[in-house]
């Protein structure tokens, strides 16, 4: 295949390894099927359909591919959870609800390379035995929904979808389903409820593991856009060869979405674990803004725990323990977890020393308070209280005990809810308090506002004493 040329000013950084984003910002590239076919498109679907479905799953398992949506769960293992004696229909859903603050990679795949996704889905559906698949696209991507629907129509015309795909007896329909602006639909069981036409209240696991009891109570595989695209490349390279990209247990490439206080925010596709946080900031993103110092990084979407610029982390390298700083952390799943945070969805938010951490946390708390689905009491009430408390710390009306209260509210959400939103909304508060506690304590003294009083109760109390 010819080496692609890119639009001027949008060339990939030399440190990048473009695979999923190979066609993003490519010169002369368009989303239509002719362009994709000319570039060798749908050849991997042909190759896959000549294989046994189990062989494909084995290749994906061998590749070590881990889900790119947030949890980093091995994709092949997820597929393997479909009960072996299953007699019900199997569904596949592509999670294109991209809504984790800090993440903006799926947008470009949907807009510029929809056929790559469709090809990945054809291969995946064939592997798991799905004849009906949905692409759940967030409501805020109206243009993407149109582009993908047009791509599906084109794929139909070219016999890549429908009955007898490519002349085989495999049949597949893919439909686009648009969300309606709720973050919780990114949670796979919430997404399934939404697709069933209900409020997206996540389901409790067990028993509702989607691979066993998913859409319409049938086995359902929910994969992220980027993960499904990777499947195509796993088939192209073979699982073993794909597994050599990146680092052991953290294979392949992934797209880092960098935003915040850097000179060149944007998307960068790199081999997993082959670049460090420092290289991301200084080389890929051209460093911090002039005269600024790094203060903190949120490394994997807003739910991941914040890391402080001067923190030291102890990680294991082989059998040896090693102490490293924030800038030395390789961008992979396992090291990020060992450093007490997570690689999550790949959304890296950089903050410099001009940022007030109470303001930052309050912004995130406002997000979570707005997006809590309201099903579980600790999350519904707690997320709102966390927002109220940080809001008054920012405004200057905090109480001396606010830091303690905030901590206690967060600690009473984590682990006490049906879905992982509980963790997602308490981790920012817990980590910001843990790492920037002094700033929050200082904020409680920002005001001269007195403690709230209740005059009626005071008068009543006086009356009682007199009697």
């Amino acid at each position, binding site marked *: 295949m010819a080496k692609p040329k890119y639009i001027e000013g949008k060339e990939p950084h030399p440190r990048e390894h473009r695979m999923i984003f190979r066609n993003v910002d490519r010169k002369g590239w368009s989303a239509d099927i002719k362009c994709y076919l000319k570039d060798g498109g749908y050849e991997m679907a042909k190759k896959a359909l000549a294989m046994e479905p189990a062989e494909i799953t084995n290749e994906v398992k061998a590749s070590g591919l881990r889900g790119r949506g947030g949890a980093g769960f091995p994709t092949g293992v997820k597929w393997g959870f479909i009960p072996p004696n299953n007699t019900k229909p199997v569904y596949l859903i592509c999670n294109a609800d991209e809504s984790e*603050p*800090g993440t903006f990679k799926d947008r470009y795949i949907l807009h510029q390379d929809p056929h790559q996704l469709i090809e990945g889905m054809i291969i995946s559906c064939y592997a798991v035995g799905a004849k009906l698949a949905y692409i759940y696209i967030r409501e805020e991507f109206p243009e993407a929904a149109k582009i993908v629907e047009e791509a599906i129509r084109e794929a139909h015309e070219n016999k890549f979808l429908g009955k007898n795909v490519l002349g085989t007896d495999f049949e597949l329909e893919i439909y686009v389903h648009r969300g309606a602006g709720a973050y919780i639909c990114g949670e796979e069981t919430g997404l399934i409820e939404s697709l069933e036409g209900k409020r997206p209240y996540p389901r409790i696991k067990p028993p509702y593991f989607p691979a066993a009891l998913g859409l319409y109570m049938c086995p359902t595989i929910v994969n992220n856009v980027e993960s499904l695209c990777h499947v195509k490349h796993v088939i192209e390279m073979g699982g073993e060869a794909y597994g050599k990209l990146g680092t052991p247990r953290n294979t392949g490439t992934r797209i880092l979405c960098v935003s915040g*206080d850097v000179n060149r925010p944007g998307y960068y596709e790199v081999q997993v674990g082959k670049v460090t946080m420092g290289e991301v900031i200084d080389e890929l993103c051209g460093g911090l803004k002039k005269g600024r110092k790094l203060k903190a990084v949120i490394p994997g979407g807003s739910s991941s725990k914040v890391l402080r610029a001067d923190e030291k982390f102890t990680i294991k390298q082989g059998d040896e323990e090693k102490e490293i700083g924030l800038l030395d952390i390789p961008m992979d799943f396992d090291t990020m977890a060992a450093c007490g945070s997570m690689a999550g969805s790949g959304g890296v938010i950089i903050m410099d020393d001009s940022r007030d951490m109470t303001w930052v946390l309050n912004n995130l708390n406002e*997000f979570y308070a707005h997006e809590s689905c309201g099903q579980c009491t600790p999350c519904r009430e707690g997320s709102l209280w966390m927002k109220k408390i940080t809001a008054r710390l920012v405004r200057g009306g905090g109480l001396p005990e606010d830091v303690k209260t905030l901590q206690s509210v967060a600690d009473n959400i984590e682990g006490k809810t049906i879905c992982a939103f509980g963790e997602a909304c308490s981790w920012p508060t817990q980590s910001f308090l843990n790492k920037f506690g002094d700033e929050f304590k200082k904020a409680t003294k920002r005001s001269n506002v007195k403690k709230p009083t209740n005059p009626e109760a005071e008068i009543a109390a006086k009356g009682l004493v007199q009697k």
Partner: protein
Amino acid sequence: MEIPAQLEEEIDQRITHYPVSKRSAVLPVLHLLQHHFRYLDQEAIDWTAAKLELEPINVLEVVTFYPGFRQTAPGKYHIRVCRTLSCAMAGAYETMEKICELAEIDRSAVSHHNPIAVSKDGKFSIEFAECLASCGSGPVVMVEDDFHENIDTGAARDLLSKYD
């Protein structure tokens, strides 16, 4: 409320995408109705329920849950400004203020249950949205279905002038 034949045809077509359960079509049907009527009133909810053989409450609970559905009329052009961290760091709150000033929109009565404010002349309405997923090019703003990047206070006037 009158549903044009073409719209109903489109709705019927959408429903076929859900061969297992008609109820799954609630969101797409509501999207089509909102797109046509600009917002969803009780009639739209009842009509959807009848169409999909549901109780009206099954539809209402969906309408009231999702921020993407509205029960009040927006302006001729509905604007959504991303409010979440990366955009806020890039100046989204200032952008919001600037647009409101230019379009003469008063947001003082805005609340969680009533997030939309409409300009005096009814031309624009505005609300804050949570993360629009373009964090590297904030502040980002959507006007109807159009997406605009890097809308700082300086770019606000130009943006509004594209719509008349």
